[in-house]
């Protein structure tokens, strides 16, 4: 009856730096590339932190100093692999009982750069929260509002 197959989104991008540098940039400067409108705090996002160890917290800090959890570090294996839990529901709220996985691989390329691949796994778990899922379409600040930008930029 219910869909039990694992649902995953995969994306990849090539960058000119080697894995170690890419890994460091990704984990240390996340606020610099995170889309600003995808923040779960009340005030504008000031920082995004990935604590560099297994069990470390993944969170954002608003300009008001308030921290909002996103998830935690499941695997910390620089320079090649990073696994984080994504515990933000479809309505952009942290829920300690909700867990999906974001896996990152940094694979060296012959030209000295690297290929960054991202897999967001276990999306089927959003299905257990169908009611919350619809709120996202309904809110002005939700994903619906930025869909045009998504399709334009991410094609």
């Amino acid at each position, binding site marked *: 009856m219910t869909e039990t197959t694992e649902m995953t*989104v995969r*994306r*990849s*991008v*090539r960058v*000119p730096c080697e894995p170690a540098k890419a890994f460091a940039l990704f984990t240390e400067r996340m606020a610099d590339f995170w889309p600003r409108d995808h923040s779960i705090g009340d005030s504008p996002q000031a920082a995004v932190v990935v604590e560099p160890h297994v069990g470390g917290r993944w969170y954002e800090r608003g300009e008001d100093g308030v921290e909002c959890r996103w998830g935690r570090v499941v695997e910390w294996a620089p320079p090649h692999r990073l696994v984080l839990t994504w515990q933000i529901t479809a309505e952009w709220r942290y829920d300690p009982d909700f867990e999906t996985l974001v896996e990152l691989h940094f694979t060296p390329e012959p030209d000295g750069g690297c290929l960054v691949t991202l897999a967001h796994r276990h999306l089927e778990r*959003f299905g257990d929260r169908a009611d919350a899922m*619809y709120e996202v379409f309904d809110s002005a600040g939700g994903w619906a509002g930025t869909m045009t930008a*998504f*399709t334009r930029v991410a094609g």
Partner: protein
Amino acid sequence: MVTADVVLDALGDASRRLILEHLAEQESPVGVLAARMPISRPAVSQHLRVLKDARLVSEHVAGTRRIYRVDPAGLRALRDYLDGFWGIVLHRFADLAEETHAASAGRDEPGPHPTEGNPS
């Protein structure tokens, strides 16, 4: 194949969103839905058809009644959003990596251009 546009159109109506909210709480036949809504039963049926086309609700037959419920296939719309979302995140990350690389290289040698992953 249900596109995000179809899903958004389906959700772009307050009555349909209300129907979805009811169904998310509890699967129901059309009569029960109509009793809880300020619109006629035929109108509810019409909205249900739009929601079904968008794969947001599905129906099954129980005895003589058709029961409607939230369709997990609607998850695909969510997946599409996340696909676009991570595409943007990685795209922006690649831009940052390009800038940093160019700055630290100190030369005019351009690095490889970032390419998008395959949008499956």
